[in-house]
């Protein structure tokens, strides 16, 4: 039993985080959550039970010393809290915003047995945002070089960890901005791009070079990188290939992959067209297909672009939705209309090949499948149509095959993921490591970061063993 010294703190109530009001925020792209004030953060941090065996850390894929940084916040030592976070997590301002805390650290929090768990995510966000200047790490270069493919969560994490170990690290990024899914996928209102830029600047401050417009497999390939003297290569290129449903009408005008829709809006800033040159169709009635975070992001983005009705079509029930609970709640508050237990069967167009409706069938839940979720089954004769002018398909992504196709000796598995050794994250090619969605298929930011951390350790071992 943890020792508990009474300290006159009311632990029953979790401090709420201030948010933009739903009606107002559904019309702008500013961040929904406004974060804690210093006072709010201190009060929330004081709710921590200071367990002797803190379970919360067990729930963190990157092993952040949660009790320590929470204590530092409670004591008002905000800069120190920031440093404690950075010790294990190179991107805390991002994780504080997008991690599914409810199924990780906060799930394990003992307060949650009786009341709401400690708001670890919100405190992480507070400490990370509060850090006034980029903390400098003391680095001794070891003269060895490592190449990183992709500047998303996995790439940035591996790069930062390796740089801190003394490696000369170069990131090769295909797009014109670093950040991967953090810049093209996750919307501004959930993760402001200025925050991503700050975290990237931190990684650069460790000596990491980011080379943009470098498509590995096209501009440069894995063999070229070894020839250029990189001792190891880490592939963190993510799962960027959008899946479509393979139903009639998917190539009509007005049908987007979530990737395209979100890339236009987030990376290319189409919400500020014509000030920015990239356009996006602003649908009046929009159907989003899917039940994950990407579907929520797409639906809420469509709403912000001025849609009157946004329908979220999902083939199972709300319980089964893989989205973060907070996103789901936010989406509902903003007026997204959930069409549950429905599955699209075809998209119907007009003479100009423009979407005018989507046909769906009703589903019911049958036996549990291998993922443990009950699989949906069609109900015969239950077809209905929704009048829509835009359809966004957000049913998942798989790894882009470009690197596997252009790298001899790289083994791939189901859906094109790279096969790696479970311990070392080394692929079938010596010296080539991989982590994140390219290995696991589309998952979360934090799981990609967790794998990248393990891979960075393995890369260090590999290089040390090799050079004796």
């Amino acid at each position, binding site marked *: 039993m943890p020792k508990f010294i009474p300290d006159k703190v009311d632990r029953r109530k979790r401090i709420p985080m201030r948010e933009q009001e739903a009606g107002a925020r559904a019309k702008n792209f500013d961040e929904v959550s406004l974060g804690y004030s210093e006072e709010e953060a201190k009060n929330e941090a004081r709710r921590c039970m200071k367990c002797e065996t803190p379970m919360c850390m067990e729930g963190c894929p990157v092993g952040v010393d949660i009790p320590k940084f929470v204590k530092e916040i409670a004591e008002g030592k905000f800069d120190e809290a920031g440093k404690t976070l950075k010790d294990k997590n190179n991107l805390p301002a991002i994780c504080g915003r997008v991690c599914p805390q409810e199924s990780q650290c906060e799930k394990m929090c003992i307060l949650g047995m009786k009341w709401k768990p400690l708001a670890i995510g919100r405190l992480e966000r507070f400490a990370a945002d509060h850090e006034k200047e980029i903390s400098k790490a003391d680095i001794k270069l070891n003269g060895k070089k490592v190449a990183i493919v992709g500047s998303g969560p996995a790439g940035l994490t591996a790069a930062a960890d390796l740089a801190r170990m003394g490696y000369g690290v170069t990131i090769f990024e295909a*797009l014109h901005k670093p950040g991967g899914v953090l810049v093209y996928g996750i919307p501004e209102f959930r993760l402001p791009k200025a925050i991503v830029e700050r975290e990237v600047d931190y990684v650069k401050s460790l000596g990491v070079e980011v080379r943009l417009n470098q*498509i590995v497999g*096209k501009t440069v390939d894995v063999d070229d990188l070894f020839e250029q003297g990189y001792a190891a290569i880490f592939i963190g290129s993510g799962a960027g290939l*959008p899946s479509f449903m393979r139903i009639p009408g998917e*190539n009509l005008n007005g049908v987007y992959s979530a*990737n395209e829709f979100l890339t236009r809006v987030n990376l290319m800033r189409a919400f500020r067209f014509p000030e920015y*040159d990239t*356009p996006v169709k602003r649908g009046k009635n929009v159907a989003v297909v899917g039940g994950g975070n990407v579907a929520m992001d797409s639906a809420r983005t469509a709403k912000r672009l001025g849609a009157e009705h946004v329908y979220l079509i999902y083939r199972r029930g709300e319980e089964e939705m893989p989205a973060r609970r907070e996103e789901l709640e936010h989406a509902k508050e903003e007026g997204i209309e959930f069409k549950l237990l429905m599955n699209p069967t075809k998209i119907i167009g007009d003479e100009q090949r423009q979407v005018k409706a989507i046909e769906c069938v009703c589903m019911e839940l049958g036996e549990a499948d291998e993922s443990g979720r009950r699989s949906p089954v069609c109900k015969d004769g239950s077809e209905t149509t929704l009048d829509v002018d835009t359809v966004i398909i957000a049913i998942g992504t798989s790894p882009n095959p470009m690197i596997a196709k252009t790298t001899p000796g790289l083994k791939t598995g189901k859906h094109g993921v790279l096969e790696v050794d479970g311990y070392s994250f080394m692929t079938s090619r010596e010296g080539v490591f991989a982590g994140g969605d390219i290995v696991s298929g589309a998952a979360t930011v934090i799981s990609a970061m967790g794998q990248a951390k393990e891979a960075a350790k393995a890369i260090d071992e590999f290089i040390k063993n090799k050079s004796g």
Partner: protein
Amino acid sequence: MYKIIAKKEIADNTTQYEVEAPDVARKAKPGQFVVIRTDEKGERIPLTIADLNKEKGTVTMVVLSVGKTTKKLAALNEGDCILDIAGPLGNPAEIIDNGTVVCIGGGLGIAPIYPIARELKARGNRVISIIGARSASLLFWEDRLRAVSDELHIVTDDGSKGRKGFAVHPLMELINGGVKVDRVIIVGSAIMMKVTSEATRPHHIKTIVSLNPIMVDGTGMCGSCRVTVGGKTKFTCVDGPEFDGHQVDFDELMSRLKTYASEEKQALETYTHQIEGVPLCLSSSPTK
């Protein structure tokens, strides 16, 4: 930043840019393209690589100024920089050996057909080139094409140069005249590629077209460039840009190309207003 080292207007509204992009030049092959972005607020557009110089580390693109982005590009001069160039993207053109190949370049398509014709010639093919445009003032690179072709035919819609008509006419004459054609490669507007591909279908001549749909990333990430080929959805950026002309659903392609017609018009009008002070209500520049 990618520096423009040479810029030349080679036809009406048509400009040739030679740009320093050593990473691209090192790897590029005929038929591939780059995605460029002119400035921080710019969009990403695909441009086919029309020539390259591996020693100098440069690539050459030919651009017709029709919309905001291409007009922004036209406003840049030698010594100025293009913010982003990513590539080479797409699969290289498939080059056969020792055959007879008809290379057809329509309008702006004359530029990308040139390196393909040159490579085919170098690989021992008999190269018959047909270049065409609406009018003589839009034709370019006649000399370049002549230098790598065994035969060169020129057509214009209005007859202002070469013979009056479309590229399909000399092609039909060659086929009907008994020339044994192993392959036809066509680069041009969607409608021209559709009509010309139809002409070779009854003769069972393998016909390759190079598509140029709307793209964003150019690396297989967004699916904006999807096209139906033989009943299956393909991404032009990673599965193409070359496809079997007899299998492509050109009507779908043409309709998808018009997706942003009204936005393109709006962007161009706003831009023209900004740089020339033309009142928004008076500008009625065509978008395509």
